[in-house]
């Protein structure tokens, strides 16, 4: 059944892309375009569930099915196919991508209503789904890389979807610039990933995940690992940093909000940005063999989680708050990977997909209802006008803040628990601080948007609730955000209640051979849970005090600590550093040296020199052609003498 359904899951979105991409204008019907786009993914979701159920029926060790659709590259010993691996890890991603993807497709039918590029939008979305599925279902790094590049392309196309709109940022004027920024920054990561692939291929002669894991887990590299493995792991991590927006390659994600909101929800929150998590999880054995790489991952991730969370506090654009929140949450996931808690990372991917998609779609509903207004300072009191959006957004905010028993509580708590256990209190404190900020800025956005005074202009703006096609997906996601946490109940609730853990066990078993996890007593676990719950509540209460009970406190605090406020407002000056240190530098070098001197003088000079010399030689040789037969015979005889002379004497 797996091998029967899988081609459909993959090819339906591709077909949707082709139909909407080529005939979209001819169809000339939003309903039809949307239906084709949404059903291509929706049917995929149903088939994915069927695959999931079939795998459930198998014994845990047999839940790994390879499907080879076609040969791709065959060169000597090297062969890479369009071959896919359906195993517990890829099925989790498969379900999230098609499931959340379907909801967002349906939502988009309402959100994009009336847009002249309606069918183009659905074509891009479907192409994205196709590429993302290739990324997570591939059984080798090269095919993953194909999907990796493909989703990068779709991200570029969708960020710049409204290419004629302005968008403000450092060095950015148009949405197209934001798209370019995302693409260029991602390429840096891609280069890292490519180099990592080269290293692995030169070492092991294969890019197949199964074969790599088999070689690596044979024990030949343990203990001690090898420098090359560390290099390979770090290179792959650079790729992951690009796609999953970790410092220092995370600068593109906030500007990616230039795209339509469903895009932000699907690509820049729920699915594509978790590709980095997938890549590291898929290559878990490689990472666990290199303690250095694991440490680097942890440090980068913890920094990202905290820095992004602090920036989120001062943002006024509702989508930017969510963007920084995403960066921060991705940091949490990487912390989990860095301490070897792979299951916790995947768990957080799933719950995050639910509540972050929910929050983004909620913000989209607000923006839709406010006639494209995104500044929270110009909102307020919207709960009266958009009750459905308010309720669902609030559920999402509670979930991400980590309040029991919503999904965010369980996944985040598990990460913090592992951070404490496997790395120590410092990492836990950093995580806890970030969690506090998260709760604070999320409720700041709730209060600024839905509570308090109505700060918008009543003459021009008439807030209204969104249509059912948008609110129904919101409610579904809200329910998932509430119950999603029960996929991974902590051990204090009993043995084997962490469903995701048992499900993913066979995938990560080889990695755990090299990375034993510490287990704390149930008391410690319980204490940590209570503390992290308190932190979440503290964050919410602080936000309530600052923005509801004593409005104006925020301004006073900002005036009291101008330096800190400025630092956060300018996002730790990361864009500026890039602008001066990288962009300007490269631009100047290219302009003044590489172009004017190297290209114009040296390269062109050489080429023109060679061309002129050849031309002169041609004119010279032309003189030989006198037209006189005697001269021809002279050359002829000269040739004969040389040949015969060489044969006799040589």
């Amino acid at each position, binding site marked *: 059944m797996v091998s029967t359904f899988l081609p459909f899951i993959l090819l339906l979105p591709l077909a949707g892309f082709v139909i909407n991409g080529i005939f979209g204008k001819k169809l000339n019907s939003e309903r039809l375009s949307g239906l084709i786009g949404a059903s291509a993914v929706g049917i995929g979701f149903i088939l994915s569930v069927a695959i999931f159920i079939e795998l459930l029926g198998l014994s845990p060790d047999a839940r790994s099915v390879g499907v080879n659709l076609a040969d791709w590259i065959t060169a000597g010993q090297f062969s890479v196919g369009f071959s896919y691996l359906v195993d517990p890890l890829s099925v989790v991603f498969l379900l999230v991508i098609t499931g959340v993807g379907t909801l967002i497709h349906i939502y988009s039918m309402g959100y994009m209503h009336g847009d002249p590029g309606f069918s183009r939008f659905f074509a891009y979305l479907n192409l994205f789904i196709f590429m993302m599925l290739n990324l997570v279902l591939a059984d080798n790094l090269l095919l993953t890389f194909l999907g990796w590049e493909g989703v990068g392309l779709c991200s570029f196309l969708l960020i710049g979807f409204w290419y004629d709109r302005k968008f403000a940022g450092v060095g950015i004027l148009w949405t197209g610039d934001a798209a370019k920024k995302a693409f260029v920054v991602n390429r840096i990561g891609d280069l890292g990933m490519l180099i990592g692939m080269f290293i692995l291929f030169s070492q092991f002669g294969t890019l197949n995940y199964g074969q790599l894991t088999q070689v690596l887990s044979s024990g030949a590299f343990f203990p001690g690992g090898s420098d090359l493995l560390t290099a390979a792991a770090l290179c792959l991590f650079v790729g992951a940093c690009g796609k999953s927006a970790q410092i220092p390659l995370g600068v593109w994600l906030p500007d990616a909000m230039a795209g339509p909101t469903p895009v932000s929800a699907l690509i820049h929150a729920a699915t594509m940005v978790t590709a980095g998590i997938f890549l590291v999880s898929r290559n878990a054995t490689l990472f666990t063999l290199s303690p250095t790489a694991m440490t680097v991952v942890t440090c980068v991730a913890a920094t990202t989680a905290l820095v992004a969370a602090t920036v989120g506090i001062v943002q006024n654009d509702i989508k930017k708050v969510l963007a920084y929140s995403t960066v921060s949450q991705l940091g949490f996931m990487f912390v989990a990977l860095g301490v070897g808690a792979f299951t916790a990372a995947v768990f957080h991917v799933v719950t995050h997909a639910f509540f972050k998609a929910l929050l983004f779609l909620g913000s989209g509903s607000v923006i839709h209802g406010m006639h494209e207004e995104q500044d929270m300072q110009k909102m307020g009191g919207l709960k009266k006008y958009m009750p459905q959006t308010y309720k669902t957004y609030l559920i999402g905010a509670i979930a991400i803040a980590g309040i029991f028993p919503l999904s965010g509580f369980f996944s985040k708590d598990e990460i913090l628990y592992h951070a404490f256990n496997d790395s120590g209190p410092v990492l836990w404190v950093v995580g806890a601080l970030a969690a506090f900020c998260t709760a604070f800025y999320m409720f700041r956005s709730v209060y600024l948007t839905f509570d308090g005074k109505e700060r918008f202009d009543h003459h021009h703006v008439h807030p209204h609730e969104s249509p059912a096609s948008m609110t129904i997906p919101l409610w579904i996601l809200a329910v998932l955000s509430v119950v999603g946490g029960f996929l991974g109940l902590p051990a204090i609730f009993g043995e084997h209640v962490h469903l995701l853990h048992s499900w993913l066990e066979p995938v990560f078993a080889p990695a755990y051979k090299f990375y034993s996890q510490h287990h704390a007593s149930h008391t410690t676990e319980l204490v940590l849970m209570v503390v992290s719950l308190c932190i979440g509540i503290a964050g919410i209460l602080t936000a309530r005090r600052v923005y509801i009970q004593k409005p104006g406190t925020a301004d006073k605090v900002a005036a009291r600590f101008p330096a800190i406020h400025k630092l956060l407002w300018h996002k730790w000056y990361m864009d500026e550093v890039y602008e001066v240190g990288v962009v300007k530098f490269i631009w100047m070098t290219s302009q003044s040296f590489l172009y004017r001197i190297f290209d114009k003088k040296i390269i062109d000079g050489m080429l023109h020199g060679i*061309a002129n010399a*050849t*031309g002169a*030689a*041609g*004119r010279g*040789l*032309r003189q*030989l*052609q006198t*037209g006189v*037969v005697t*001269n*021809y*015979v002279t*050359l*002829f005889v*000269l*040739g*004969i003498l040389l*040949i*015969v002379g*060489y*044969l*006799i004497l*040589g």
Partner: protein
Amino acid sequence: MTQTDLLAGLAIEIVSIFALIIMLTDALVERSTRLCETLSIVGLLGGLAASAYAHLTMPGQTAFNGMIVVGGMSTLYDAIFCGAGIMTVLLAREYLTRVGGMFDEFYTLLMMSIAGMMLMGHSADSMPMFVGLEVMSICFYVMAGLMRNKLSSNEAALKYFLLGAFASGFLLYGIALVYGSVGSTAYSAIAAKALSTQFPTLFWVGIGMMIIGLGFKVAAFPFHQWAPDVYHGAPTVVTGFMSTAGKAAAFSGFVGFIAPTMASGVPGLEKAKVILALLAVGSMLVGNITALAQTNVKRMLAYSSVAHAGYLMIGLAAGNAAGWTGITYYLVAYLFMQIGAFAVVGILERENGGNLTVDDYRGLARRRPGLALVMSLFMFSLTGIPPFAGFFGKYYLFNAAIQADLTWLAIVGVVSSVISVWFYLGLVVIMYFREPLGEMEGGEASISSRTALALSIIGTLLIGLIPQAIINIAAR
């Protein structure tokens, strides 16, 4: 002479007999041009059919006491010669009438020369090879001077004849020396007996002389100087025919006599390879570099045909199976693109050498978009750009050189291909991106010319897309 002999040589016999019939028709029937044309095509198609029949029923068999061989590469040679003949016939009447060279003996000469070529392609012995070569050459001398009231045409014929006679002498002398040293003229016997010959120097000088004689016929440096003058002076359709079928015939003779010797591993072989490699290098570089300086399209193509002889000689120097099939493939590819290019030149050409300079091609894309497009295709293919046939031709030849540890030769080949980009694609640039200088006279291509052009394009594209088909026939 048995029935099998006659059956094996059926293709050659059919073409020869038709040549005679056409001569009689020309003499006995008034205004016989159309009839001669039809007879030629029928004869050539008959030749093709007979060759295919022999290929399928008696591959690798010899006849006439081991003088000729059938099947395999010789089938492809037959196809090249007859194919070139058919396309030339299709193009000839319109062109020759326009430039004032329409004499019906053209068809007899064409058929006769093809018979000679086929004899060369089938020969397994130096003697029929030489006879075939002479039959072909004498016809060529006359065909080059077909426009008898035109000075350049007469000059071409005379120069070709003088130098050709000189070269034939060397070829025959070489055959004699080889016979003197090994006591045989049959290729396989030469290769076998050369291992034990008492006169190795004599033998190698003989082979050297044969290389010189055939090197002249393929227009290899430094024996190439006749080619630009003759190709320029001869009627354009004849030039197209000579530079493709004529070159192919000479190479078929070349491969035939040298392949067994190369395979036998006779001591001194390396020297012959060095000579062939140097001839290849000289031809490629001199041909392409001199073509750079040409302002006349016909001369440019003539010089570049010297360079193509150089590419083909890479296959001879490699001296391995990949080289032989590479040569055969290249000859097929070259047939289509070169005849096609000359066909376009011929269609545009006017009396007294009008419309032949590069400047006349300025802005052709606007005045004759169809012709400019097909000319561009041929130019791309001649340059060696995929997916056209010219690319795979070069690929197979360079690959053969690398297999024979002659990587440097392949590099020279690539470099000289790069040089050729300038004038081949330069012509495309001129056709598409330059303003025309003046009005170009009209004049439509006839149906038969269009057919020939279409055949060339289909060939250039088709064997570029499925090169293996040709390779498979050659390897049979």
